[in-house]
């Protein structure tokens, strides 16, 4: 099925919004959407949510003979798939331009930057090496697949453990995880892609474009960097005219974003590690039963901000009245081994362009933040919510919607 084309008025609306430095989902120009990283029960499985974009990465390994040209190096293989499940525009079994682009960019970002020590994957030189295969599946497409895929891939690789082997002469014994603890891959650095969308011949720039914005953009610049401020790959596409200064500026923005995201990945990895060590519940096993499909998108409900003070007071009073009941800020219970960032409007990545409006928001956010930080008395100590103001009231674009939908709270008894 071909993608339904965007209507002219939608296109104009989006472009106009970009010109006025506004975005349909209320973000600032340089804001990312919420990133949530969840790990599976098995090693090397990771789901990344970037707003509504959702990507699953799974790492697997097998022993194969090495390439003739590199007899002492293990093989890294990336495969990204766009299933029709993610978007009706994707067709199965066809090498679309997008697919080629994403696959190559992923390879370029992770393989060519040598982020993984491939020589340590050699078992017997010239005969057996580990082939690490990273399968990336797009589960839901809401723009910026590249960034989400790169986060998912590197997080999955960092999470992955390969079985230990013993060599006796020419015999190779592969130990099961029960016999000997599997060993992690040696990762030198974590390259992460940051996408910049350009509009109006490069006049306007947005970070992390959503699907709508991607459709009206002129071109894209993807910069992959690690937290050491090293650029691992740059790729422009889409027939735009850039100037050198723009590329340099983007690389500066990218370095800020990358350090934030790297921190988030590390935090998520730590949480997962701790959960596993303590023998608690971890992985999807924990998160799945609570992720009710009906409740999944509730936290996105736009709420008018006019009488936010009243609402906040009401909530506070309720919270104080029932201190014994654990309140979770979102119907989606983030599982252990989960990191979350940037929930809501809060611009945690303050960049050079601080606006007055933003400060206002901060004040309001502080109000509503205070009372939802209520996770501590739960037995799941390791839940990390960097900005737990998930259902902080959001301003509607037009402000036409009357009536207040109170932030939904859910009781959870443990």
């Amino acid at each position, binding site marked *: 099925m071909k993608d339904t084309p965007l209507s002219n008025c939608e296109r104009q609306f989006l472009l106009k919004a970009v010109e006025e430095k506004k975005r349909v989902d209320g973000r600032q120009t340089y804001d990312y959407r919420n990133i949530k990283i969840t790990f599976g029960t098995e090693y090397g499985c990771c789901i990344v949510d970037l707003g509504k974009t959702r990507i699953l990465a799974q790492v697997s390994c097998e022993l194969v003979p090495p390439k003739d040209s590199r007899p002492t190096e293990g093989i890294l293989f990336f495969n990204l798939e766009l299933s029709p499940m993610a978007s009706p525009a994707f067709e199965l079994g066809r090498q679309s331009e997008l697919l080629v682009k994403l696959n190559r960019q992923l390879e370029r970002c992770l393989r060519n930057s040598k982020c993984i020590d491939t020589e340590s994957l050699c078992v017997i030189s010239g005969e057996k090496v580990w082939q690490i295969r990273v399968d990336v599946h797009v589960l839901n497409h809401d723009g910026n697949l590249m960034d989400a895929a790169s986060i998912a891939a590197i997080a999955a690789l960092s999470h992955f453990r390969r079985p230990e082997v013993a060599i006796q002469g020419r015999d190779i014994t592969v130990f099961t995880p029960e016999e000997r603890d599997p060993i992690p891959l040696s990762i030198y650095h974590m390259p992460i892609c940051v996408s910049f969308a350009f509009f109006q011949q490069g006049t306007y720039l947005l970070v992390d474009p959503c699907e709508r914005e991607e459709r009206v953009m002129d071109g894209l610049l993807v910069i992959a960097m690690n937290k050491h401020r090293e650029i691992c*790959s*740059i790729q422009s*596409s*889409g027939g735009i005219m*850039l100037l050198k200064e723009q590329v340099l500026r983007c690389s500066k923005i990218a370095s800020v974003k990358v350090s934030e995201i790297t921190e988030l990945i590390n935090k998520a990895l730590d949480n997962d590690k701790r959960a596993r060590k303590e023998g608690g519940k971890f992985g999807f096993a924990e998160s799945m039963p609570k992720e009710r499909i009906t409740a999944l998108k509730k936290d996105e409900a736009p709420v008018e901000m006019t009488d936010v003070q009243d609402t906040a007071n009401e909530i506070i009073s309720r919270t104080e009245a029932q201190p014994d009941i654990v309140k979770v800020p979102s119907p989606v219970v983030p599982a252990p081994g989960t990191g979350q960032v940037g929930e809501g409007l809060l611009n945690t990545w303050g960049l050079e362009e601080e606006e007055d409006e933003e400060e206002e928001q901060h004040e309001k956010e502080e109000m509503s933040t205070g009372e939802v930080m209520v996770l501590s008395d739960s037995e799941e100590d390791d839940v990390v919510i960097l900005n737990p103001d998930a259902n902080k009231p959001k301003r509607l674009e037009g402000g036409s919607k009357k009536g207040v939908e109170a932030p939904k709270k859910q009781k959870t008894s443990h």
Partner: protein
Amino acid sequence: MAGVELLSDQGYRLDGRKASELRKVQARMGVFAQADGSAYIEQGNTKALAVVYGPHEVRGSRSRTMHDRAVINCQYSMATFSTAERKRRPHGDRKSSEMSLHLKQTFEAAVLTQLYPRSQIDIYVKILQSDGGNYSACVNAATLALVDAGIPMRDYVCACTAGFVEDTPLADLCHAEESGGGTTLALALLPRSRHIALVQMDARLHQDHLDMLMEAAAEACRGLSKVLDGVVRQHLQEVSVLTRD
């Protein structure tokens, strides 16, 4: 790259060039009579052939027709004998598809496609011998072919690669320098306006060096543009002399 010194203490590279020196460029326009435009280019040992057909009616799937501009269709292929190891498929693998895509995007930026609504411009490029800088050789050859075909462009598109070794940017990498796994930046530039039509970089480079590397690549592109300019003017004069009556 283990063991091989890409830049000697005296400041010379593997093939005896200075850091900012380009390889010898030779080019010819109008090599085929059948095509609307064609060109052949040699950049050192990298040899490329480009052929342009069009603008013409959209063939194949009609659905690609655009009512406000021309569709650019690119196909990149490498001759099976172009590399040391014989290639099995001349085109169609991931790298070639990506290269076709990049060429397409490069020329969508430079060609005034809005002048030819509902039509199609085909650009076919073939690498006859590969010795590094395939993308740039293809872009330069295709530019000449487009000029030969009389297709309006904003400016020449010149492409060149640049590498980075020991804090020194190297212009126009050859295969040995490219395969070492060091930083490689490919840049397609419109030299007059200094607009970048495509930028692509591989392997690690510290952010602070990016400016220097891009400037080196841009400088190399401008050098190349002078060579291409000479080729086009020479061709123009030759043909004009013949059609003097």
